[in-house]
């Protein structure tokens, strides 16, 4: 008889510790969301559906909602096209250098969207240093083609390609070779296999990937802010930002309703994704065979060249544009050997006090969040795995919410929760602590999931063996659980650091003078026309990101499966 489930085992000290850390985690992650929904429903005192309807009926709301749906929807379509092609080819064929290809495809996801937007505007439009250097720039006064819905859609599509790629590849890899071999033995050939075997088996993961991509695109702030605001094209996140930036906390109730609107769409997307995820598990139980491997034959080299050209177009080209802009003395000057200048880098990195502050702030915030979340998530994930309490299961299904909700929504929630600390006159709004708490809420899932997946793979007998020889709770945590999940916890911590270090959406609404983050600095520099300096800071961040990703990549051999998000 085998044990399919980890039987709950009880011990009072474990139960008490679970209650403690679970309570803490719920307070950190779910309290802001609960506060937001409370505000949205009771805006203007009492349960007030009239106010809700009033905000929703405004033309600005309606057009922003429509813009959000259009850009997120069409952007997702682009992600599906690019990510789908890559996923099928990488997962199912005998391409060479797959690891390098996947690594490069992951970089756009890890580069913050405002930098993506900035770098793309540097390869297009009349002031593009890149185009001027090549002598291809359109005449001055010509419009920047990216300041348009089309530009937003294109960049959203590129930004989120890797989400589709990762989910679809995981689904494709789960198809055992014998499923296809059985079809061929039964006489199915060519496209029929694809149509009747491969596609139906991957459909749940594809649909799940689409749902989560759509939600992510919907919440994206950096791209519509950098491209849409100059064009007067508002999506829900930028509308919220503009309302709050323009009118201050007086419009909190109104933006709370807007935040709820976008939150509702996001939750619908998450539920859809969950549904497909469950469907998929139903399909492929016990798929233990070898994964499919289709030889490409003579088409291999052309396919490889095409894929690498694609990488060049979505990664190398914008980065080259960004680099070129960061190296000229003034925006608009073409880059030549005699105009090459590091002034922008020097000014931005060493002179501007705001940049220096932002580096310190972002570093402390993300390192602090990573360390604290690691300390919280390790015991939490382990105890939740061992004790299937109802509260734990509920938390497990809700803890992605602050990460999946658009950053502006979470920011509004944090403001509502912390603008007046309960029972005091004190406020955290305007201090760095509100950003820190927001990071804890937002990135708990990023830390928790890798740790959880590594602990799930841990044989429960590891712990039971230690119990049987008499080890008390804290000894087991220290001697068994911590060492065995340390690699996953470290990877999770690096991921938290990486995402928090670059983050703009949350801090865009929470920063004040002195508490800027790097994302805010780039956004503000670009907003005030200091494109060269913005590019220099952005380039620095891209280098940091790629360095950290390389560190994870190089240590991934020592990590359990499923911990590094871009490897399966």
């Amino acid at each position: 008889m085998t044990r399919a489930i980890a039987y709950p085992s009880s011990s009072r000290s474990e139960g008490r510790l679970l209650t403690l850390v679970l309570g803490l985690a719920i307070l950190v992650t779910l309290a802001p969301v609960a506060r937001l929904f409370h505000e949205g429903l009771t805006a203007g005192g009492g349960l007030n559906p009239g106010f809700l309807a009033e905000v929703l009926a405004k033309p600005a709301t309606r057009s922003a909602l429509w813009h959000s749906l259009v850009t997120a929807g069409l952007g997702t379509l682009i992600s599906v096209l690019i990510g789908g092609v890559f996923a099928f080819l990488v997962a199912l064929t005998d391409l060479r250098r797959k690891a390098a290809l996947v690594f490069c495809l992951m970089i756009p996801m890890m580069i913050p969207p405002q930098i993506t937007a900035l770098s793309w505007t540097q390869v297009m439009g009349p002031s593009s240093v890149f185009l001027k250097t090549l002598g291809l720039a359109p005449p001055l006064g010509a419009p920047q083609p990216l300041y348009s819905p089309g530009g937003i859609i294109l960049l959203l599509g590129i930004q989120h390609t890797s989400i589709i790629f990762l989910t679809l590849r995981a689904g494709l890899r789960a198809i055992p070779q014998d499923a296809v071999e059985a079809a061929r033995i039964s006489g199915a050939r060519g496209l029929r296999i694809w149509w009747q075997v491969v596609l139906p088996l991957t459909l749940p993961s594809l649909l799940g990937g689409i749902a989560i991509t759509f939600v992510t695109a919907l919440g994206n702030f950096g791209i519509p802010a950098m491209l849409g605001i100059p064009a007067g094209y508002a999506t829900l996140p930028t509308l919220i930002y503009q309302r709050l930036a323009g009118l201050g906390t007086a419009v909190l109730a109104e933006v709370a309703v807007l935040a709820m609107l976008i939150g509702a769409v996001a939750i619908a997307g998450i539920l859809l994704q969950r549904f497909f995820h469950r469907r998929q598990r139903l399909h492929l139980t016990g798929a233990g065979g070898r994964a499919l491997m289709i030889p490409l034959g003579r088409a291999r080299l052309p396919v490889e060249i095409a894929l690498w050209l694609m990488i060049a177009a979505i990664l190398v080209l914008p980065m080259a544009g960004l680099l070129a802009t960061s190296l000229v003395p003034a925006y608009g000057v073409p880059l030549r050997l005699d105009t090459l200048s590091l002034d922008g880098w020097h000014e931005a990195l060493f002179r501007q006090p705001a940049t220096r502050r932002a580096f310190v702030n972002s570093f402390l915030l993300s390192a602090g969040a990573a360390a604290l979340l690691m300390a919280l998530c390790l015991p939490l994930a382990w105890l939740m795995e061992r004790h299937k309490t109802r509260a734990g299961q509920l938390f497990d299904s809700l803890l992605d919410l602050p990460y999946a909700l658009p950053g502006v929504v979470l920011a509004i929630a944090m403001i509502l929760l912390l603008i007046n600390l309960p029972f005091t006159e004190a406020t955290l709004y305007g201090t760095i602590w509100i950003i820190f708490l927001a990071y804890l809420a937002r990135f708990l899932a990023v830390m928790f999931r890798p740790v959880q997946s590594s602990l799930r793979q841990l044989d429960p007998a590891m712990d039971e063996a230690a119990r049987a020889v008499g080890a008390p709770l804290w000894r087991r945590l220290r001697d068994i659980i911590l060492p065995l999940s340390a690699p996953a916890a470290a990877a999770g911590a690096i991921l938290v650091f990486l995402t928090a270090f670059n983050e703009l959406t949350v801090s865009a609404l929470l920063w004040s003078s002195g508490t800027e983050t790097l994302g805010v600095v780039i956004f503000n520099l670009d907003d005030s026309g200091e494109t060269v300096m913005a590019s220099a800071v952005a380039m620095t961040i891209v280098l940091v990101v790629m360095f950290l990703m390389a560190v994870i990549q190089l240590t991934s051999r020592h990590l359990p499966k499923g911990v590094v998000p871009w490897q399966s």
Partner: protein
Amino acid sequence: MAELTLTGLAKHFGKTAALQSVSTTVENGEFLALLGPSGCGKSTLLRLLAGFEQPSEGSIHIGAQEVANAATGRHAAPEDRNIGFVFQSYALWPHMTVRRNVGYPLEIRKLPRAEREARIDAALAATALQPYADRMPSDLSGGQRQRVALARCLVSDPTAVLLDEPLANLDVALRASMQEVFCDFHQRTGATMVYVTHDQAEAMAMADRIAVMNEGRIVQLDTPEALYARPRSRFVAEFIGDGTVVPLSGPQHSGTSCEASLLGTRLPVKTDSPSPTLACLRPENLAIAETGDIRAQVARATYLGGRYRLDLVATTGDALVAQSLTRYAPGSQIGLTLTPPWAFAAA
């Protein structure tokens, strides 16, 4: 060392009862096997003994100490029971060397270093593991890992050793040699051992007594010989050993002997029941004889190496199993004579 006493033990997972009203005693120093098909509750029983689960009803005593009682809510944690547990997956800690794995229980008990080292060395010697002391578990073969697991539970002198299908992941040859290791271990330490398995050959080879379990109950607890020769239910008769169960009628006792009608004829049977209703026919009860008064048709002949197993259908329609040194073609008619089979009342 201590005896284990279970009283009215039951365990429910949600609405399903994994274990129902189990009362039994494992004697001090006894090697007891829990044998049964998948899902019969044998692993649940073992995990209740270890303390990984709490009983829904009933109580457990280790020696004189009550370690679990569903009525009073008393539950001693596994770490406070001083039992040894050998897992099917070995459960060696992959980040510790063999020596540290074996020595960890002593580390917990804060033994002085010198004594600790001495006891680790003794345990490693007893399992022939000295050459591997500084290896990591991942560098060991399956049999070596199982020996490390055994050494780890041996080192702290547990009051009882619980083994959860410890040989299920090993190949056939290794199983036989590990059986010897377990038997030696039992003889040398005299430890009370409870051994879960679904393999009856394993249970028969090692155990002093076997508890056959089905659907959450112990259906019979006896020595291996008694289980084979005197099953008390259709389930045990069919689960243990080869053979078939056929109905009998009209039992007539005269003195110590008994006669009953089965397979269409009157035959002497062995029984201790006043009114047996079933007979267990082992292959050794049946002899093929052309003059035999029981006629049967061969349904299938399976070569077992040196002999054939014959699946037969008697004229009464009952299925029988016999052994023969020669092959019979399916469909051939043969005659059988019977030595007195074991008869019992249907439970």
